[in-house]
């Protein structure tokens, strides 16, 4: 019997309702596919661009041990980019198209990486707060409805907890240190706290893609719920090492069973998202340059592969 378009749509919705995963060869609405390509590629670009603020400290890490750890972490981020690009490619886009969209500014990456890592404590804050916020989001995405994306998330979450702990340990050591070291940790906390909260995106009511993504189970929890979860888990961690969170409205709310916290500076959020954060141009220029500088390697590998197969 001939399947009609409506049959396909019904089958798709039945799978979503039954918590079955959608797999690459399955029929899916064009808008679902587009939404996934946008979200997964943005996620992949974030992993790769995220290597830059940390790479800034590779040659200046305070010890060989810290340098080795940071190198391993940055290598993981590159790997995470690979898992996510591969997941996006199962939707019928090529890696070249995705990179081109990034270079031409049609694809975004997480705005947080447009902030500079100016002190060693920033490496601690990035691991603890930025990766911590990313984990909250990614744990929820392990249940996303698209199979390849969900599997990439499982793999990434396994590796990500090392990132958060290494960052927190840097902060612990600085907080145990002398007055200058403590001040450095507190300063990083103050600069990274609000951008970390911004990582969860706009309030649910103002989020452009949220409602449809929740219906399709691409997103499993709302921006505001995930942000609350992050605040609740992070406050005790800051208190434990004597760091102060820069929010005068932060207070435990017994009735809600959650922390209340102040509102994000949405002007800053919009400014950075629209390309005018501290490092937006630098990040993109560096990515373009690295890609172009690597062209001769790709050309050489391609030429070598062609010579190995004279009949091809």
């Amino acid at each position: 019997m001939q399947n009609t378009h409506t049959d396909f749509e019904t089958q798709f919705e039945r799978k979503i309702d039954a918590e079955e995963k959608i797999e690459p060869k399955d029929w899916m609405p064009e808008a679902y596919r587009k939404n996934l390509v946008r979200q997964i590629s943005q996620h992949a670009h974030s992993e790769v661009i995220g290597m830059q603020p940390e790479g800034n400290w590779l040659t200046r890490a305070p010890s060989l041990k810290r340098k080795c750890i940071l190198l391993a972490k940055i290598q993981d981020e590159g790997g995470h980019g690979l898992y996510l690009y591969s997941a996006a490619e199962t939707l019928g886009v090529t890696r070249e198209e995705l990179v081109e969209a990034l270079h031409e500014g049609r694809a975004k990456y997480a705005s947080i990486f447009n902030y500079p890592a100016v002190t060693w404590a920033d490496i601690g804050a990035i691991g603890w707060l930025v990766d911590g916020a990313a984990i909250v989001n990614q744990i929820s995405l392990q249940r996303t409805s698209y199979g390849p994306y969900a599997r990439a998330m499982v793999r990434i979450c396994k590796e990500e907890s090392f990132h958060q702990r290494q960052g927190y340990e840097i902060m612990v050591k600085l907080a145990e240190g002398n007055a200058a070291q403590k001040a450095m940790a507190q300063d990083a906390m103050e600069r990274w706290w609000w951008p970390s909260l911004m990582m969860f995106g706009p309030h649910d009511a103002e989020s452009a893609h949220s409602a449809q993504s929740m219906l399709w189970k691409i997103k499993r929890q709302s921006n505001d719920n995930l942000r609350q979860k992050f605040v609740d888990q992070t406050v005790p961690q800051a208190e434990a090492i004597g760091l102060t969170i820069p929010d005068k409205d932060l207070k435990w709310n017994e009735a809600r069973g959650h922390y209340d916290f102040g509102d994000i500076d949405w002007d800053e959020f919009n400014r950075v998202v629209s390309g005018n954060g501290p490092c937006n141009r630098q990040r993109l220029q560096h990515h373009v340059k690295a890609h172009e500088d690597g062209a001769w390697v790709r050309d050489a590998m391609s030429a070598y592969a062609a010579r190995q197969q004279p009949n091809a």
Partner: protein
Amino acid sequence: MSKTKPMPLFEVFVRSRRGLDHIHVGSLHAHDAEQALEYARDSYIRRGEGASLWVVESKHITASQESDAASFYDPMDDKPYRHATYYTLPDAVDNM
């Protein structure tokens, strides 16, 4: 942007220890199988996840279509006598 030909796609399989099956873990681009193996080592077994790696170019995999299930798989479902539970045992024999 470079005019280099896009690299073919490879699927990666990892055997986590001897005695277990190789399991599909993901895919990557490489110019040839040897390079794919090195990339797979760097990407998928950084924490001792595997004792053995397989890579195969994705185009060499032929996949069944889930949408063809009716004609492709159904004949298997009408032979319940293939399952042990199809057969009843006398009460005196409670396990076999």
